[in-house]
C-alpha cells in the first residue's frame, strides 16, 4: 500500500501518516473487541459453576426468591445443605473410592505393561500389529453396547460364592458389586491406557533401551528400572483420565449395583436421587451434593497437575 502511495508522488506522505494512525486505531478497537469477547466467554463458562456454588449456600427461600447467580444474603445463607449432602453422600464417597482407586491403578499398570510389550519387546511386527488393532478397537466400543452382555456375564460368574469368606467376615455381600465394578472398569479402561502408553513408549529413546540390554538387563528389569521410572508423566495423564471416567460413570453402577439403597452404592447412584422428592427439587441440596461428588476428581487433577502437563505435551 505504502509503495503504491509513493508512486503517486506529492500527496504520498500525508496519506501515509493518515493510514498508519488509522491502523493504530483499528488495532486498539480490535483489542477491545478481543478482550470483551474473552471476558464474555469466561462469564459464559463460569456462570453455571458460580450459580451452582452460590445456590448450594442458599435457604429454600433464597433459591426461589433470587436470581440463580446472585450470592446469598445474610438472611438466606446456610451451610445446612452441605451438611445434609455430606451426610447422604458420605458412604457413597467411600464406596466409590473402594472401586475407583484400585480400578484406576490396575488399569494404568496393566496398560503400561501391555504397551511396553507391544513397543519395546523384540517380537515381530506382524505379531504386534493385530494385538494393537484389538486394543484400538476396544476403545471404540460404547458403554451402552456392552450393558446387556455385561450383566449376563456377571450373572454367569458365581463371584458371590467365591467370595463367601468375605461375607463370613461380616462384610455386607452387596459389596460384590464393588469387585465387579473394579474388574469391569479395568477391562474397559485397558485399551485406552495401552494406546496412551504406547505412544509415549514409541517416543522413548531406542538406543537407551538397547544400552540397558547390553548392560545385561532382562526385559523385565529394563521395564522396572528404566521404563517404569520414566513413565511418570504418562501415568499422571492416565490416572487423571481413568479416575475421572470411573468416578463419574453412572451406567456400569446402574447395571452392577443397581440401587442407592444398596450398602455398596457409589456416590453417583446416591447423587442421582439426591434432593428429588414428590415435593419437588431441592436445588441447593443437589448443588452441594454435586460439588462434594466432584471434589475427589479435582483433588486428583491438583495432585498430578504438573506431571499431567508434561505428559500431555509429549
Amino acid at each position, binding site marked *: 500500500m505504502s509503495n503504491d502511495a509513493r508512486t503517486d508522488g506529492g500527496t504520498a506522505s500525508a496519506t501515509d501518516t493518515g493510514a498508519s494512525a488509522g491502523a493504530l486505531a483499528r488495532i486498539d478497537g480490535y483489542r477491545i473487541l478481543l478482550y470483551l469477547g474473552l471476558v464474555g466467554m469466561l462469564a459464559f463458562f463460569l456462570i453455571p459453576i458460580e450459580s451452582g456454588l452460590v445456590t448450594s449456600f442458599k435457604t429454600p427461600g433464597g433459591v426461589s426468591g433470587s436470581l440463580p447467580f446472585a450470592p446469598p444474603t445474610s438472611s438466606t445463607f446456610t451451610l445446612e445443605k452441605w451438611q445434609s449432602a455430606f451426610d447422604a453422600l458420605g458412604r457413597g464417597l467411600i464406596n466409590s473410592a473402594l472401586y475407583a482407586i484400585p480400578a484406576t491403578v490396575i488399569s494404568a499398570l496393566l496398560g503400561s505393561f501391555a504397551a511396553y510389550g507391544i513397543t519395546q519387546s523384540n517380537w515381530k511386527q506382524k505379531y504386534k500389529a493385530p494385538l494393537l488393532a484389538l486394543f484400538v478397537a476396544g476403545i471404540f466400543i460404547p458403554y451402552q453396547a456392552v450393558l446387556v452382555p455385561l450383566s449376563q456375564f456377571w450373572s454367569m460368574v458365581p463371584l458371590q460364592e467365591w467370595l463367601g469368606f468375605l461375607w463370613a467376615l461380616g462384610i455386607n455381600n452387596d459389596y460384590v458389586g464393588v469387585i465387579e465394578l473394579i474388574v469391569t472398569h479395568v477391562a474397559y479402561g485397558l485399551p485406552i491406557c495401552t494406546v496412551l502408553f504406547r505412544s509415549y513408549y514409541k517416543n522413548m*529413546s531406542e538406543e537407551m533401551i538397547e544400552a540397558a540390554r*547390553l548392560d545385561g*538387563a532382562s526385559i523385565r528389569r529394563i521395564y522396572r528400572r528404566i521404563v517404569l521410572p520414566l513413565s511418570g508423566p504418562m501415568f499422571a495423564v492416565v490416572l487423571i483420565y481413568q479416575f475421572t471416567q470411573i468416578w463419574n460413570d453412572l451406567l456400569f453402577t446402574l447395571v452392577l449395583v443397581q440401587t442407592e439403597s444398596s450398602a455398596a452404592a457409589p456416590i453417583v447412584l446416591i447423587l442421582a436421587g439426591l434432593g428429588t422428592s414428590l415435593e419437588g427439587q431441592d436445588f441447593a441440596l443437589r448443588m452441594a451434593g454435586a460439588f462434594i461428588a466432584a471434589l475427589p476428581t479435582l483433588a486428583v487433577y491438583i495432585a498430578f497437575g504438573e506431571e499431567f502437563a508434561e505428559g500431555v505435551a509429549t
Partner: protein
Amino acid sequence: MGTLELDGVTKVFPDGDGEVVAVDDVNIEMRDGEFLVVVGPSGCGKSTTLRMVAGLETVTSGEIRLASNVINDVKPQHRDIAMVFQSYALYPHMTVKGNMAFGLEESTDLSDEEIETRVTDAAATMGIAELLDRKPSDLSGGQQQRVALGRAIVRDPEVFLMDEPLSNLDAKLRSEMRTELQRLQSELDVTTMYVTHDQTEAMTMGDRIAILNAGELQQVATPLECYHEPANRFVAGFIGDPSMNFFDVERDGDTLIGDTFDYPLSQSTLDDIGDVTDLTLGIRPEDITVTEDASGDHTFSTVVEVVEPMGDENTVYLRFEDAPEGETFIATVGGLQRISVGDEISIEIPEKAIHLFDGSTGEAVHNRDIEE
C-alpha cells in the same frame, strides 16, 4: 580372550516384497586388544555390522565368534560387550553414578562396595569424579560423552563397540576426545570396534581400518596401507582429503591415452597392468608438483581455475589446457607459493606416485612406489 571374528557375516532386511542386503559376506578377524575402525559412507552397513556384533540385530548368515565361541544366538545381555552410542543413550532419571553402576548391578554379582569402588575408579579415569551425583541433563555434551564411555569401561568387557561416539561433539572437543579415546583404548587394551563416517577418525585412531561400501567389505588394512596401497578405486577415493584425482584412460601400447592428455608408462608399470586396456589413472593431490620445466614426459600445462588458501597449503583446482572449462582436478601446493586464478602453470604427475585401477572392476592393478 577378546579375539573377535566375523566370518561370512550377512544381513538381509525384508523390504516390502523384496529384500535389501545391508551387509554382504563380511570377513574380519580382530586380534585381542586391537582397535579396528569401520568406515564407509552413510548406509554402507557399518552400523548394522556393529549392531550384529552387539546382538541388537540378528545375523542372516555367517558366524560371529568371540574368543572362538560362536555368539550368533547369544542374547545381548550375555555377550560381555559394551557399546557407546552416538546419542550417548544415558538413563536420564539416574545420576552419573547410577548410570555407571547399572551395568554392574545387572550383569554381575558384585557387592555394593565393589561396585562403588569400580565406579569411582572408572570415573577417575574418565575425569568425571566430581560429576557422580549429577543427572545427565545437568551435563554438557562432552561430559555426557565421558559418562557414556565411563559406563562402558566400568564393566571391563571383552569388546567395546562404538557407534560414531564423537559425531555429536564440536570440532575442538572431538579432536580432544579422539586423542583421549586412543590413550584409553591402549591403556585398557580391550578389543574395540569403532564405527565412523569421518575419515580423519579412521586414519588417526585405528590400528586397522575396515572400509565398507554398499554392504561389502572393500579392504581391511592399516591406515597407511589403505592410503598408499588401496585395494580398489573406492578405497582410494574414500581415504584422503582432498580425495584422489581420477582420470579415465585407455592403454595404447606403452602410453595411456586420456581425453586431454597422454601419459607414457615405464616397463615396470606396464608389467603390473598386464593386458588390461580400460584403466583409471589415480593421483593424490599432494603428489602433483608445480614445475618450471614443462618439457618432461609427465609434465603438463594447466590453467588455474580456483585457489583455496588453507594457510599451510593451497588447494588448487586445475584444468588441462585442452580440457573444457569446469573439468578440473585438485592439487595441493605449499602455502607460500603464489598462484592465482587464471595463471598458466606446468605441473608434473610423477610416475612413481600414480595408481592404476581396472576401468571396469575398479580393482587396483598398480599402486604407487613406496620408498622404504
